[in-house]
């Protein structure tokens, strides 16, 4: 999926940030044709999924599920009392000298940040990774206001200079290969062409160090807000987040209101789960606990700390008991790595900032189901996301519930006929045997001599478009079981 080969639009909507109604099925078809992309995403997600299991198993053994349910309980409790904990967080943050601002929607959040930048007369802003600012499309707003804004997370930096968009919550450039990085660095930074990841990283390091030194504004997200102390907690690996929150005079953290947790006890459990679920590390390399601007006597740090608390659709989810649970998400990306649909379709197919199972649930909730009517279909309901989630969010349940909200219509005549047949075939052992026998018979008729069916007729062709169907043996499983001497009831 190099920028040269990916079309800029699918179905008349931009590929990266569609604004109108879009269909994941047509978008996924496009990405399914890119075999390099498929291979890269499959490998990265499989490795991270295994790393998660290993890290959690090694640290907690059989207690993992108990800890997940405690974590889930902590988040549920906090969300159920969001008014209390958020209010307490604001009071404590203000007492520590943090300036807190409240934004009802994305536009207001961007407006507040731009206004602070203008007041501080900021010319250069260094920014660390933040999903909520992706949601609000903050960077173009700052650029338009004349503030040069540089993404400093390596992946986000590459994506920014290559005019691309992140496709994974934790591994933003999972869809890009080293060649595209090499080309972008040569084109945009005037660097010598090299495909060595080590050398590419060094080029970015040198380029960004200059930016940290000159920047007068730093912007970050926040992984957690600790209510008892008014702290913002930021988990990063590269160190760019530390630069953005320490080097410039002014720091602004943009954070969703659902990020609050009651206290440090609760935080410790969520930290134990977050990095292990995301990358298999015990903790991210740097976990920063930021409580207000530089204190009297401290040798450095920003002289002003601002936090913009963003609603942008979250209270709408809060008001809906069926989906409130989705606000517990700690953005670890484990459900993306575990999801067979994400692995095939890949992040950009979802056409939203949040992809994978969690994206298929919260994108329609945050933006409206009318714009994203097919996202809840992007799941086989296998349950892998539910099992992977460190806070045990029941994503399959919510995907089904969302489907219920889009499917108010009756099926077509063909669909209803098919479902009636299906119901009959499951109605008794006798009917089941008849129906499976007939299915196998018809499949053999169509496939001729071959043991595989490569293209099925009519409405069944969708099934064989991406894979072959194995033709069943002439003898049923039950027959073969009996022949081997197995007992039957």
């Amino acid at each position, binding site marked *: 999926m190099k920028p040269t080969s990916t079309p800029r639009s699918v179905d008349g909507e931009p590929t990266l940030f569609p604004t109108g109604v879009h269909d994941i099925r047509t978008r996924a078809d496009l990405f399914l044709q890119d075999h390099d992309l498929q291979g890269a995403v499959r490998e*990265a997600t499989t490795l991270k999924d295994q790393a998660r299991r290993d890290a959690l198993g*090694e640290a*907690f*053994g059989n*207690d993992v599920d108990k800890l997940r349910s*405690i974590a889930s*309980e902590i988040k549920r*409790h906090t969300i159920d*009392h*969001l008014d209390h904990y*958020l209010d307490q967080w604001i009071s404590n943050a203000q007492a*520590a000298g943090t*300036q*807190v601002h*409240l934004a*009802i929607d994305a536009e*207001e959040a961007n407006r507040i940040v731009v206004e*602070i930048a203008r007041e501080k007369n900021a010319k250069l802003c260094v920014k660390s990774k933040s999903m909520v600012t992706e949601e609000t499309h903050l960077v173009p707003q700052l650029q338009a206001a004349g503030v040069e804004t540089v993404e*400093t997370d*390596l992946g986000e930096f590459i994506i920014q200079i290559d005019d691309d968009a992140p496709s994974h919550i934790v*591994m*933003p*450039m999972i869809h890009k290969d080293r060649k595209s990085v090499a080309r972008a660095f040569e084109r945009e930074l005037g660097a010598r062409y090299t495909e060595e*990841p*080590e050398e*590419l*990283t060094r080029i970015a*390091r040198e380029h960004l*160090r200059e930016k940290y*030194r000159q920047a007068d504004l730093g912007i970050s997200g926040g992984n957690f807000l600790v209510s*008892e*102390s008014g*702290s913002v907690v930021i988990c990063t*690996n*590269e*160190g760019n987040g*530390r630069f953005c929150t*320490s*080097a410039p005079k002014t720091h602004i953290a943009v954070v969703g209101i659902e990020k609050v947790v*009651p206290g*440090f006890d*609760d935080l*410790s*459990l969520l930290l134990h789960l977050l990095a292990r679920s995301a990358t298999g590390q*015990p*903790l991210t*390399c*740097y*976990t920063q*606990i*930021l*409580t207000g*601007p530089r*204190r009297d*006597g401290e*040798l*450095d*740090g920003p002289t002003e700390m601002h936090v913009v608390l963003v609603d942008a659709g979250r209270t709408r989810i*809060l*008001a809906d008991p069926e989906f409130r649970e989705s606000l517990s998400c700690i953005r670890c990306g484990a459900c993306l790595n575990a999801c067979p649909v994400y692995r095939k379709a890949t992040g950009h197919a979802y056409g939203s900032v949040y992809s994978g199972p969690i994206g298929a649930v919260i994108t329609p909730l945050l933006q409206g189901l009318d714009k994203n009517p097919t996202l809840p279909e992007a799941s086989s309901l296998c349950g892998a996301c539910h099992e992977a989630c460190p806070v045990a969010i029941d994503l399959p349940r919510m995907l089904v519930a969302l489907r219920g909200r889009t499917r108010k219509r009756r099926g077509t005549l063909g669909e209803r006929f098919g479902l009636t047949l299906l119901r009959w075939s499951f109605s008794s052992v006798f009917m089941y045997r008849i129906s499976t026998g007939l299915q196998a018979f018809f499949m053999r008729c169509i496939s001729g001599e071959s043991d595989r069916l490569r293209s099925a007729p009519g409405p069944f062709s969708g099934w064989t478009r991406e894979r072959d169907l194995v033709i069943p043996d002439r003898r049923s499983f039950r027959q073969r079981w009996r022949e081997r001497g197995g007992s039957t009831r």
Partner: protein
Amino acid sequence: MKGTARDVFFERIRDALNRSQQPTREPLVVDHDLIRRGKNSVPEDPSARSSLFKERAIAVGMEVSCCKKNTLNKSMVDRLIRAGISSVLLPDDPLLENDSTQLLQDAGIATHDNGIDIDQLYTEVDCGITVAIVAVASTGSVVVASSDRERRLASLVPPNHLVLLPESRIVPDLIDLSRSSAGQTAPLGGSGALPSCLTIVTGPSKTADIEGVLITGVHGPGRVDILLLEGC
């Protein structure tokens, strides 16, 4: 405060929660100690705690060496020379004795103190030396804090970071950061204001963004050495 007024903002949240008046909040009761009962946690024995810390810190890519309080200066110089370091930024910490600076200079290592110019910090310092306020055995982490003794940038800008860690500051688990234990007050929680920035360091700066290839020293230090002061 910019943006929406606090009462309007909270009105929306209370509406969503279907509450008209101030909430009656049920307390959150969860068994946090379950975290510590994990099969790898080492609760109380200090020497077992110390060896667990070493094992875990090495596992996340940091180097650990040990010394006694009275051999601190010598061990520090040895460590720095072995790592090929020729200039350091020193903290203003009582742990370092008066003759530390002299000993380092005698060994051919240029020393800077907190009065250093920021540009010099970016260009001239090979290694920032800081003192850990606490360390966590179960994750192999050291915690550094912003203060009047240490810059935030000391453990971030130079390519190497040397952490001095008195053994008694190792706590068993993250949860102990917020719970006072025998003879120690908790660095988080309890009374007393927090510093503006606490950083739990668990390994050198790293990334795997380009095709999953692991690279250390992206923006922060690529090498973190811990000097563990035994019996201190």
